[in-house]
């Protein structure tokens, strides 16, 4: 009987494990770094986490729909290069707004290309987005072969230092995302998303517009990647075509730690948000614990593996006991 309660609990609240891990990591981090909750430290952390957080939310939506998007890093790179080359350090505010708008369109377009290949031509998501990811990364490199360019100082400062309601800017962004997600989940589209990821042929037999739903997940992911590219440009204040390359796998990791299933149909947005912050704080812990830089990557990777494997280990343990 114990088995069903744990399993149903996990099934109903896929983010439960992420929450537990999240709390543990915060406690450990707070012990190592007592000033963690000071506004400035909090903001320093959150503004760094925000780009990956946006990416992980988009990734999670694709994964709930049964796919995966490996091109998100490339899309974020393109946006970064577009803004850094087209707006420039001395650009006007109008230009900034104009190119933010263009960036969002570009993200949607890149996502639509992925969606077309996967939903209409029925290609494998992992292969397709791996390939388009190269195209996007290559295009970013074409736009900006060497790191450089930039955005107006005022815009970067706004991103780095604004603290609405006495809280980091990222918190407001998270609040908006959660609110929108709550709305989406309460609509038919939300149901379709889970149905398609859960069992696509059954959804088709029930007259769910499966292709359209799959297509839209990649568009959403492309849009989120564009937001992420905008955020990372504001954070760094400059352009670098390689900036997104490491973020793709991190976004998948954050989504999985957040309880989104690779097999589709399970997950949410709160989980990946906590997953991203958990990943970031792990990095902090590793740096604060005085592990030499040689071992940093290894230590981080070990924590991630344990975090990913933990639900499986718990299940195994329960099965054995039974």
């Amino acid at each position, binding site marked *: 009987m114990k088995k069903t309660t744990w399993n149903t609990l996990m*099934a109903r609240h896929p983010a439960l494990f992420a929450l537990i891990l999240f709390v543990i990591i915060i406690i450990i981090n707070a012990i190592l770094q007592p000033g963690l909750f000071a506004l400035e430290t909090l903001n320093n952390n959150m503004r760094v986490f925000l780009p990956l957080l946006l990416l992980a939310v988009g990734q999670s939506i694709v994964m709930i729909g049964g796919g995966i998007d490996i091109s998100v890093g490339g899309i974020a790179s393109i946006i970064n290069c577009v803004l850094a080359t087209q707006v420039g350090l001395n650009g006007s505010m109008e230009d900034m707004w104009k190119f933010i708008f263009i960036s969002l369109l570009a993200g949607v377009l890149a996502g639509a290309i992925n969606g077309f290949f996967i939903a209409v031509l029925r290609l494998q998501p992992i292969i397709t987005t791996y390939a388009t990811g190269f195209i996007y990364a290559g295009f970013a490199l074409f736009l900006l072969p060497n790191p450089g360019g930039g955005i107006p100082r005022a815009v970067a400062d706004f991103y780095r230092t604004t603290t609405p309601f006495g809280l980091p800017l990222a918190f407001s962004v998270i609040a908006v995302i959660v609110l929108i997600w709550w709305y989406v989940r309460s609509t038919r589209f939300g149901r379709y998303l*889970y149905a398609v990821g859960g069992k696509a042929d059954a959804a*088709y*037999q029930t007259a769910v517009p499966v292709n359209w739903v799959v297509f839209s997940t990649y568009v959403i992911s492309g849009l989120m990647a564009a937001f992420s590219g905008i955020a990372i440009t504001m954070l760094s204040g400059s352009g670098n075509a390689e900036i997104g390359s490491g973020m793709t796998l991190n976004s998948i990791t954050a989504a999985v730690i957040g309880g989104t299933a690779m097999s589709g*149909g399970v997950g949410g947005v709160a989980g990946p948000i906590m997953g991203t912050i958990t990943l970031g704080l792990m990095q902090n812990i590793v740096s604060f614990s005085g592990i030499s830089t040689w071992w940093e990557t290894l230590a981080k990777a070990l924590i991630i593996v344990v975090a990913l494997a933990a639900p499986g280990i718990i299940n195994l343990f329960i099965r054995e006991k039974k």
Partner: protein
Amino acid sequence: MNVSLSAQNIVKHYGGVVALSDGNLEVQSGQVLALIGANGSGKSTLSKVINGVVVLDGGQLLLDQKPVHFSSPHAAIENGIATVFQELSLIPNMTVAENIWLTQEPRNILGIIKKKEVYQKTNELLALFEGTYKTKLNPDTPISALPADEKQIIEILKAIRLNPRILILDEATASLDSRQVQRLFKLVNQWKQEEKAIIFVSHRMEEIFQIADHYVVLRNGKSVGTGMIKDTNENELVKLMVDKTSVFSFKRQEKVKSLELKPICLKVKKLKTDVLQGIDFEVRQGELVGIGGLQGQGQRDLLLSLYGDISFTGDIQLFDEKVHFKHPHAAMKKGLALVPGDRAKEGLIYIRSILENLLLPSWRKYGTPLRMERSRKDALNVSNSLNLKMAGLQEPVSSLSGGNAQKVVIGKWLMRSPQLMLLDDPTKGVDVGTKAEFYSLLTRLCDEGKTILFYSSDDEELVGLCDRVLVLYDGQIRTELIDASLTKENLISASLGVVSEVTE
């Protein structure tokens, strides 16, 4: 709300396989039409054409005398046609309420789903089967937590959520218990009063006679008989289902009647799994025993549990030795071999060469480092003895036809010279010529002293080839057919659960 549906000369093929060549049926308001047929007769295909899951290749559908064309399930649903799918169209991770109302959720102006209304409407539907649930079912229960019969009920409720005009019940009673079936029939009678038209696809004769008004019998993709249920009886329907013009040309050589003297190879007692309800039988060495029955009656479970692939309870004796295999490897060591039902997925590695596929289970035999020359020679011997038509052992299995690919599956086990071979529908999708080769191969193997347990969905094959046929029904051996009683009529009526034996 009068409605009539008529399907005329429906043709449907999947690739080269013709599933339906001339499907006809007609149903009207207030009628229950039983769609009957043996394995592979096209029942499911015909119902899938009507509900838009597959697009027909020929013929036409008339709804209220007007021709209609359904290019997707959506189009059929719009026209008031709902289906209870045999393989269920439920999403395991979603709740009962979410599943029942998927795509039809009531919404407010902002597009937000009205949860209270969904909840209340779900409870109203659940009330239809009140008292037959074994679990504490509520609208928030996830589907994956439900037992098979309750999933089936949810599937039925999902089909009637929209008050359809035409309802297709495709094997809807398969996993229900008798109380639930009676409740369903009460509802069906009520729906008849409401002028709905119902198509009832089933293989249970007693249920057909209890609920249906009309019938259509399908045989080999053609409708071969139609009429009123009250003017017919079980035996007449069975006769309609049986193909008289036999294409089965294989003549089995008179077997030396010495089986009684042979030792018992396999003895199974009280074998139980989730599907099997307690199976007892014995097989002597050199015997070719068929397993028959409609698909999904536990045949696959029987073979897999013998092979140690799924867990079971019960006693199995192999040549007087008690065995309980927990893993296929243990079974292989004792000389068992399984030719699985889905050769593409379970039997072969299509992109690798014939040689590699043949040697896969027996590499251990060739030592370290591998004696490649000897292994190649052995593989060549086996492929020659099987008369494998190929360009060479190096060619990938994907270059072979279905029949030759299946020979590779059998060949890879012959390399281990097994004692007992378990065959799961090995001639599915195999051409007629190769089938005949299989039959002589199987009899030859038996004469050499190998024992074969042979499940087939092809009734002719079982009757023509086997020494004995065990007919499974609902996870039990319903009948054992041997010698004179081993006829196609008896096999089909036993498959359908008809108790009395048909004699001509």
